[in-house]
């Protein structure tokens, strides 16, 4: 897509998005409310530059918020709601990436790195005591002269 068309496309996304209705919603139980808040933070706004459904002003975000609300009122659980979104928008819509073979490195990598780092430190800590190499005569003489000159300065 060339640049100007891309800009027009983006513009089209935003012209309607600017003044989305922002009606507060009510829940029967605080648990539902918490689920709603958490889900909105974990779902991504598709048209924005990296914002969650919770933060976004875009109209599509409002539509999706309404959808999440409707599904919670309907008694659907979090997994069902996430699946609904993924079926339509792909994994991109989840801020918490699913754990599947292509994301193992992402989820387990930090733990692996942690273990690796601790192991490396343990190796370095263990093998660090070395017997100092004995000085040669020439070096011994140099040490003496350094000590003498240093003592002279200190006074």
């Amino acid at each position, binding site marked *: 897509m060339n640049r100007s068309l891309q800009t027009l496309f983006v513009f089209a996304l935003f012209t309607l998005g600017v003044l989305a209705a922002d009606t507060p919603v009510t829940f029967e139980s605080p648990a539902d409310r918490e689920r709603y808040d958490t889900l909105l933070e974990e779902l991504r706004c598709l048209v924005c530059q990296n914002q969650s459904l919770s933060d976004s002003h875009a109209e599509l975000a409002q539509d999706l918020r309404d959808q999440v609300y409707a599904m919670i009122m309907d008694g659907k659980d979090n997994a069902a709601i996430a699946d609904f979104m993924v079926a339509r928008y792909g*994994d*991109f819509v989840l801020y918490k990436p*699913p754990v599947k073979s292509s994301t193992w490195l992402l989820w387990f990598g930090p733990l692996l790195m942690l273990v690796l*780092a*601790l192991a490396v430190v343990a190796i370095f800590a263990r093998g660090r005591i070395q017997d100092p190499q004995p000085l040669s005569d020439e070096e011994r003489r140099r040490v003496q002269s350094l000590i003498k000159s240093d003592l002279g300065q200190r006074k």
Partner: protein
Amino acid sequence: MIPEIGHFMLALALAVACLQAVIPLVGATRGYSNWVAFASPAARVQFLLVLAAFLTLVHAFLTNDFSVAYVAHNSNSALPAAYRLSAVWGAHEGSLLLWILILCGWTFAVTVFDKGLPPKFAAIVVSVLGIVSVGFLSFLLFTSNPFDRLIPALADGGDLNPLLQDPGLIIHPPMLYLGYVGSSVAFAFAIAALIQGRITAQAARWIRPWAIATWIFLTLGIALGSWWAYYELGWGGWWFWDPVENASFMPWLLGTALIHSLAVTEKRGSFKNWTVLLALATFALSLLGTFLVRSGVLTSVHAFATDPGRGVFVLALLGGVIGGSLILYAWRGPSTFAGGNYEPVSREVFLLLNSALLAVATATVLLGTLYPLAHEALGLGKISVGPPYFNVVFSAVMLPLMAFLGIGQFSRWKSDSLIRLRKNLVYPLSATIAAAFVAVIMLGGQKTIAAGVGLGFGFWVVITTLLGIRERCQGRQHPWFTLFNLPRAFVGQCIAHLGFACTVIGVVVASFYSVDEHQRLAPGESTELAGYEFHFVNLRTYSGPNYRATQGNFELRRDGKFIATLKPEKRLYHVRNMPMTEAGISPGFTRDLYVSLGEPLDDGAWSVRLYFKPFVRWIWLGAILMACGGFIAMFDPRLRSPAVARTEAVADTSSAER
């Protein structure tokens, strides 16, 4: 005419930078002392030229010269003067010029404060900084010229993005850039040390003040950004793990590791190669950040609107500078002299652990930030990695770090024993657990485990720091006397660690115990949140210099007693036709109350968001403490004692000759 002068100054600066990059370097390696002496004047001339160019751009903004394309796109005649100044760095070209100005500024500073450095070493440092400058000036002049003319000129400009029309924009980017760019100084020192093959304890002593100074600016810059987002965006959030935020956080993490590793190298001569690698990597992350923000590779609210062509240039710059430095490292690293010895249980090992864990934390953030890109590049589809991932994984890495911080700051150099540590730390550990327990109960008893753990680690750092001070004061002198005469490096360290704990505690409490409500409220109505009463008095509209505002008037009460008036606003900026919210905040040491206006609803009522944010200010207070700690530590006279320098110089020459 004046913008053309600015453009010409930049071209001259590029020429000077080329000379600065080559002549002193050749002079230092070949021994031509007058070539070596070229470094300082070249750096100073370059700084003056870039400063002149920058001032012409500022002039163009202040005089509303809309024939300059950059001014036309980012300013407006109705824009208040202060924002016309900050609009200079409001978009890609201008902020890049600011970057270069700050780079030249740091180089200038190096030439001013180089008393204790051998001239050849200093010359190489300046040359390396010159190479970086050549790269960035080329990038600016060939792809991102801020002085391009717009013909025909616009009658009036496109205005600065309303999100940026705020005092925060005036200081946050310059502060952040001071930190970002400052990492180039430690980088240059590391390169100079590698080139000369003299990675020594003394070199570490030279680098340390620069590394700490950089770190201070980065700490403040990031904290400012977080605070700004909090009060400006209207959602009460203060960190989003956005790629650009991560791009500034990673150099900070590694910069912290660098400071601590330098301490070991400086005192004991150990970990030299690791310290050098940290210095290289910190700057590499800084360049990576520049790439991420300006190439369009990742989506971010912070990213500048730019194109992949520029991205290619920056990637080439990144590849060349860092690739070259890592080749140098691979070549010279093996021949570095081994440093001091230490036992398996010693302060050195704890500091090594600290470095390693901070490096893991940095790698974790890098992994999460770039994983979507790699995933897509490998054809595996598009995924998103956001706060739910980072919050979990990053916190998990931070916990062992804090644990070892507590033990480590208590441990002895070279040789310590687990028995001694255990004996001294058993009571603090119990005290920590008790304190965490009590705190969680006082805060309301919910979310006990997660909050308790987080608070516990924060308290652990505080208690062990205080204990370390007490142990230090036990000696022959009277404890109070010792307390007031502690070495600055130690005082700085304690304050910085306490600041870190303060931030952690703020993060934990604000994250777990915030309460918010989203309600419809009409003027005249009241509502309640967390024991506070919010009374929506009335609404008024007014016109600002370049916007039209609807302002709500809220009265905040507790138990009937009046506390404050909050005035959240909803603004519409004329030129870009863009709405903005300004939150109404009642700040406090232990809590913030926050009101933000949403949209007007059908019947005269408004959709209103209310937030109760306990301890949120501790997050930024902790950052200020960390910066103070760094500042105090920087001026420790032991870092620049001439007698020590002289002795070391002699010892170093003799050891280098071996």
